[in-house]
């Protein structure tokens, strides 16, 4: 009954189902950035002197930078003086159990379908819930602590394990790295810290749900994960946000460090508010994620399912320093309506016998714009380095766009690189065929899209894979009839 143009228009008429606002009094800083405000944040969090100095150093450097313009994304200039850099729920977070958590907050999670209690009991997932800028609940901490695993808010780690934070913070993403990373280093307010000791295999998936709430509050998360020799950890990050008119900036930094024979698996499902059908509102997701395979035979694997945000600017990368280290990047990114995504990865091969795999699946619908941007760099000393890159684009409708921008730099003749790319379209014929079998158009699109992404979904932890498939179906619902 519908042509592809109509189906795209229908797709755009769909609302965002996670749009609601929780009313909790916030204790916030007036908008704007200044050295005083940074000192306020640092003092508010009771940070040591060196941390305050680090922030100020980053801030001064940030003032000298300008926003990067090379990405295929368009947006109105951001007024950084309009942003509120600190807001915290007034109910203070030193809570022993979930019973003490603000019930309003718990209801918010329930609406999102992620009741902490259920997660805790049923899934055996330890959840460090970030609500606005302060952690409100950390679970399973004792069990982890007995194994020597540290999993806590970064601010707490600053108090309890300052030497680890000092050693590794900024060691993968220095404060000079880029505009957004510098800003984050200056004003970050919350995030998670994970340390897995030597030889320990973390017995559960570590998970953090982020949720942006207070209006005009930019959220500047900072996550630091260190896997010591021979350890193993899988970390899950998932998020959704309530509906907002103002664009909300999110400039997070994630740093991973894997020492000898350590493995870090980092999975993300991102479903922030993408803006309305005309592109109004929505989150700006400008994130710097990077992992350092510092040790021999270490491995870092990024898996991401990006369905939300108005603009995504994100390149989870691996620096393969240790000989025999492995980097992986599995990505599904969806741009619908006016969403823009410029995402990909960097694989920097420094050590010998290093290997990397990139599998990127981009889906564009509506007037969505999708760019895969990937860099594979083989340095001089990286003998026998190998990379396999596969990037596939799927187009739904005829007003969307997909670009692939691979950069390859090889300085060692023993390197082996493979690059595969494809672009396909969900065709009218495919939809008709499915419908003739009784499958509704919506379900047909979901079926085809999930089929397209299955190589990536396979990499996700089981419960996340189910969630991701649902999310993708939800994001494309109403697409075609």
């Amino acid at each position, binding site marked *: *009954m519908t042509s592809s143009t109509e189906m795209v228009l229908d797709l755009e008429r769909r609302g965002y189902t996670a749009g609601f606002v929780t009313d909790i009094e916030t204790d916030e800083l007036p908008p704007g950035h200044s050295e005083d405000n940074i000192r306020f944040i640092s003092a508010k969090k009771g940070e040591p002197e060196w941390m305050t100095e680090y922030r100020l150093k980053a801030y001064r450097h940030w003032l000298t930078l300008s926003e990067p313009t090379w990405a295929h994304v368009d947006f109105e200039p951001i007024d950084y003086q309009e942003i509120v850099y600190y807001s915290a729920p007034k109910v203070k977070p030193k809570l022993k159990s979930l019973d003490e958590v603000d019930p309003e907050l718990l209801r918010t999670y329930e609406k999102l379908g992620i009741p902490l209690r259920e997660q805790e009991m049923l899934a055996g997932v330890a959840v460090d819930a970030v609500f606005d800028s302060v952690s409100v609940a950390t679970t399973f901490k004792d069990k982890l602590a007995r194994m020597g695993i540290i999993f806590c808010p970064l601010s707490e780690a600053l108090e309890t394990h300052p030497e680890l934070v000092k050693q590794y913070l900024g060691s993968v993403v220095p404060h000079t790295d880029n505009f957004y990373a510098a800003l984050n280093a200056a004003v970050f307010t919350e995030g998670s810290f994970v340390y897995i000791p030597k030889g320990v295999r973390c017995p559960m998936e570590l998970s953090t749900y982020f949720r942006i709430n207070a209006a005009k509050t930019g959220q500047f998360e900072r996550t630091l994960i260190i896997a010591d020799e021979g350890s193993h950890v899988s970390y899950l990050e998932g998020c959704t946000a309530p509906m907002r008119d103002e664009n909300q900036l999110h400039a997070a930094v994630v740093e991973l460090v894997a020492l000898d024979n350590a493995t870090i698996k980092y999975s993300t499902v991102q479903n922030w508010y993408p803006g309305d059908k005309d592109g109004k509102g929505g989150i700006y997701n400008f994130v710097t994620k990077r992992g350092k395979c510092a040790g021999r035979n270490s491995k870092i694997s990024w898996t991401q399912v990006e369905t939300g945000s108005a603009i995504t600017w994100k390149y989870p990368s691996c620096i393969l320093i240790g000989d025999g280290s492995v980097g992986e990047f599995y990505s599904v990114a969806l741009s619908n309506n006016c969403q823009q995504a410029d995402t990909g990865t960097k694989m920097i091969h420094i050590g010998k016998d290093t290997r990397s795999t990139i599998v990127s699946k981009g889906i564009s619908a509506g007037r969505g714009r999708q760019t895969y941007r990937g860099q594979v760099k083989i340095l001089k000393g990286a003998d026998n380095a190998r990379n396999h890159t596969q990037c596939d684009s799927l187009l739904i409708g005829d007003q969307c766009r997909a670009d692939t921008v691979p950069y390859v730099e090889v300085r060692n003749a023993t390197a082996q690189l493979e690059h595969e790319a494809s672009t*396909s379209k969900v065709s009218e014929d495919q939809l*008709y065929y499915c*419908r003739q079998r009784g499958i509704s158009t919506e*379900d047909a699109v979901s079926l085809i899209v999930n*089929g397209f992404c299955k190589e990536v979904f396979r990499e996700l932890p089981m419960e996340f894979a189910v969630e991701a498939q649902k999310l993708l179906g939800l994001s494309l619902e109403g697409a075609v009839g």
Partner: protein
Amino acid sequence: MLSIRNLQAGVDGKTILKGLSLEVKPGEVHAIMGPNGSGKSTLSHVLAGRDGYDVTGGEVAFDGKDLLGMDADERARAGVFLAFQYPVEIPGVSNKVFLKAAVNAVRKHRGLDELDAMDFLKLFREKLKLVGMPEALANREVNAGFSGGEKKRNEILQMALLDPKLAILDETDSGLDIDALRSVADGVNALRSPERSMLVITHYQRLLDYIVPDFVHVLVDGRIVRSGGKELALELEERGYDFIREQVKRGQVGA
């Protein structure tokens, strides 16, 4: 079961079906034969509800309901099945996943419980045996890399699973060698039942040696110009469509 009255339809402003009428009762197998361009495929797609076809006149009742007022997927759930002349490839989606989605969509419509993975697998294996299809093939992506014969057999497998009231077989014989043809026909014959009607659309008489119809209709220039029993197909084979065209011209047969 199916009642087509004075159906006029076309595509891009060009009229292809020019007043087609046909009655099909439960359990009957009707063959529609016609030369290229006579409107055979248009008929099958108009009945299945493909976008892009304009119905300009006439009506079609299916099971007492107005078929033309329903969307393609509604028609399918109501029991109309089209075995495609050119089955579509859907890369990345396994045949099993696809068919489970289809079977459950149809079951839901009929007020039955959706099948879980285990129950579906049981049904699936049973139907595989019925159409003589190896399970390995069924685990592959929908029609991707299938040979012509495998694609057609896959269509019959789907028909077996969806259990339609009306099956339209659109040139199911095209591109098949004699062994494949026989195997596909065996599958179709196994699915004949007093509750199921079939519309077998074909250019050649050959298929009708294997799927023996109750009635044969000759479609020329968008109209059924002659109807008869299965022997009409043999006559056509012998004398060709030109003979019928001549008869139409001389007014010996009428629409």
